[in-house]
């Protein structure tokens, strides 16, 4: 099961955070994010994409200036999660056309929608890019008409 999905920039600032476990206070969350990103960012390119942190396994991948971090429990297929991250990035890329940090910041709601289409309650649900984006396109069209 996925515990959280984090997108941070190379300075360690959170750009998107989705938790699938409840009960984390904001202070704890900030501390956790800081600790995990600090550790991930300090790792070298050649080292493996997995990091064990407390009872979590953090699987991370870097795309240009953005780091995608996914915290999972023992049961998850680590390589599968890497593939999932890749799929997420490709989908964001497809929707935003060459996604960058600012796209995520300014359109955080859209980014969340994409994530919600792909995963729910810590489980992967959809990996077909077209299917993921389809609802967003419909919404975009409707809101254009309204304007």
């Amino acid at each position: 099961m996925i515990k959280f999905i984090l997108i941070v920039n190379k300075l360690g600032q959170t750009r998107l955070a989705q938790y699938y476990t409840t009960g984390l206070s904001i202070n704890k969350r900030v501390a956790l994010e800081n600790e995990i990103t600090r550790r991930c960012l300090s790792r070298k390119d050649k080292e493996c994409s997995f990091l064990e942190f407390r009872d979590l396994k953090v699987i991370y991948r870097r795309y240009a200036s953005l780091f995608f971090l996914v915290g999972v429990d023992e049961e998850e297929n680590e390589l599968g999660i890497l593939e999932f991250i890749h799929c997420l990035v490709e989908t964001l890329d497809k929707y935003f056309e060459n996604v960058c940090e600012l796209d995520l910041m300014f359109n955080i709601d859209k980014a969340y929608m994409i994530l919600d289409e792909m995963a729910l309650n810590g489980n992967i649900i959809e990996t077909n890019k077209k299917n993921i984006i389809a609802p967003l396109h419909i919404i975009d069209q409707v809101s254009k008409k309204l304007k």
Partner: protein
Amino acid sequence: MSLKLHDLITKVRESSTTSSTREIISQECVQIRNAFRKEDTKNRPRNISKLIYIDFLGFPTDFGQVECLKLIAQPSYVCKRIGYLGLSVLLTENEEVLFMSTNIIRSDLASENKFIVALALSSLGNIGSVEMLRDLAPEVEKLLKSQAAYIRKKAALTAIRTIRFVPETVDRFVGCVKSLLSDKNHGVVLGGLQLLVEILKIEPKTISEFRKLVPGLLRMLKSLVDAGYAPEYDFEGVTDPFLQVYILKLLRILGQDSKKYSNQMIDILTQVGTSSGLNKNVENCILYESVSTILTIDSPNRLRVTAINTLSKFLTGKDNNMKYVALNTLLKGVNKDSKSLKRHRKVIVKCLRDKDISIRRRALDLVFGIMNKKNVKELTQELLDCLPKAEHDFRFDITAKVCTAIERFSPDDQWQIDTLVQVLTIGGQYIRDDVIAIMTHVTGRNRGLQYYASKKLYNSLLDDRYRNQKFIQVAAWVIGEFGDILLKKSIEENEPIDPSQIIDLCQIIITSSRNEDLTKYFVLNTLIKLSTRIEGYNEPIKEIIKPFMKHVNIEIQQRACEYFRLFEDKELLVFSFDRIPVKDDNLETQKIEEIEENSNQNRNTNTKVQENSNNQLSPNNNNNQNKNKQEENELNLMGSNINISQNQTQESSSIENLLQLDFSNNNNQNVNKQTTNTQNQQSNQSTEDFLSDIFGTNNNPNRSVNNTQNIQNNNIQNVMDLLGTGKGNGTGMGRGNGFGMGKGNGTGMGRGNGAGMERGNGTGMGRGNGTGMGRGNGTGMGRGNGIGMGRGNVNSQKKNPSAVIYNQDGLKIQMNFKLVSVNGTPAAMIQSTFTNSTQTQMTGLFFQVAVPKHLQVQMAPPSSKIIPPNNNGKVTQTFRIIKKQNIKTKLTMMTRIQFKINGMPISKQQEVKNLPLIF
């Protein structure tokens, strides 16, 4: 005018310092709050978006939660979308707000717009609480059968959360799974697979029903594997790897422990295992999952060998991710395939030296996993070789594993000592505390190696390179304990060590400012032990100890004072620092229940042995008792002195507390204080267990154990006597042979000797620091270097109830009850007194008590097995009853008494009701 999200972000990005960012945010928060207060509905979505951004920056945003509720209550989709998003991001622990959303979510779930339904489902699936999920389970079930695949897949995942949080709803969803799995939409199938995995976790009984799905799953997997290019779900040439992974995962669960279904899977697993290449991550991902499945299910050997070989290919490859997962998988499948694993040992060991810490950690676990008695020497050496180069955190892990290996897989004692010394010298500062316990255990157990160990440690101690505290402590302990053997044997082997060399070394260590206080405790103990082991060095040792009587550390000071005083009483000194008896391995693991069971079978044989040992030891006991009486008198005198100051300070603690102390002193902090007892760390069990061990020694025909039991009992008696007679203000001091309970904290009902007393009076608190040089041991218990804090004021007015529970055949058993609390739980301390009114003495006394299930009984051994005739003296046995569950009832118990009179065995069993204690 409210800022746009865009502008806020720009503003924050432009600010150069954290403080200016904070200012911008706090200003904005004020604005947002105002807008909320004014019910600014138009800008509400925008404000929530801003709050989400602010939340990422790590500022508190909980004031926005209720606004999210207002948003989701709006009919418009745009508002709902932001509202649900805000709810899932901003919500922390506030269940109330969440619960308020239940009805809105319920109506949204019934909406005709599938996007609104999807929003509500996602929200419920991501953040739903137990109550919400329970309430909305019927709706989720309905949506599983929805027309739209888009809804079905989300409902499946929401169902997972529902059964995870509310397991009783599982029946609702069991029936839906099959239709989900036969769905055409990949997303729905994916959801169905995950739901099934969750159901099997919660309701394992359903597995036989779901095993029927195996052929269908295999067909599905095969079609995915065989499928050519499928544009919809293509990932670098592999068709929907996620679906494949989840099918394999489910097969793993279904095939486990079932030969029949495992056999059905072999073909397709072989195909998956051989068809994929090793280049792309996607391919490896499926390969990895199939290998895990092969290793878990009941698969034939050849398939297993292929699987392990695949992993070794992962291991030897360049990709670190592959190495990691391979090590991880090997660790999971390690027990079943240790033979084929052996061939890959070199590769695994090589990973210990990898640059990547994640891989090294996995490798360490795996190396430990494949360790056994045959390869332990080699593998431990590998671990030790990595130790000096490893980073700080990792060293703790390595030493912990090495220590466990030494304990668990050791082929012989000498290797154990060698390795211990090695790990102590090179990584002592990273080692866990119980290493001392391992060392004391092995040296105590194997007499032949005592010289070897002490010599080795002594030589290493001379080496300046090894200066870590843990090592010095262990070395000091061993040298102190076996100092005589070290000297004697060294002369036999023509490498004589001069005693003064050892003592000089101790002096260097104890005076060095580099050594911490704990080490100094150890060395003080070494010195005092050496004074009993080696003739003629008392004076130099006294000289070394003397300056420490004024040491700034109060523990060192006290120790030094006590030891200095002990030199005056040679007999007590020798007695106190005699060699520690060997701990019996078997005792450690036994639980009181088992012992009670065993006792019924073994009693007959054991009582004889115990009687014998009892007889042999009785002169010694009498001796002690006499001494104790003398001490009591002495102390009564001293006690009256103390009273003057105590009446002023109104100390309310009483000797009762002392008694409690005896039982409950099991905190680790005591270990630091009472370093003489470090050997007791051998038992990491809770006091209860440890107590049970001690009590359990009833059945063990071990003389030394009985010896200590008797000594302990004398003390119990002494304490009890004190309690009884101490009307008014009595200070609890007896000459202590360590009431060694708990973790060997012999709380000395100590003889209040000079050093302590002076200090006590000095503070005007009337604190008599008595020293109990007791030897409470038995099961590897150390000497109780007890500190009796005899605070006076026995409150003797408090009447403790008592009852005569047995009065037959001349035997009378009286019980005195006292309510105490053990670590916060109520408990009853019960002292049973046995008196004999017949003309002949009763022997082989054996008394047992059983209590209802909600209670727990812990018994100390009786003070004697023999009850003297004509009411000439009594035998006491204390036990305590602890409440395990909070049920208030009158105390009832089942007792069984056995004894012999004129060689005639008598056994009586009776239920004791109506005891005068509500408990």
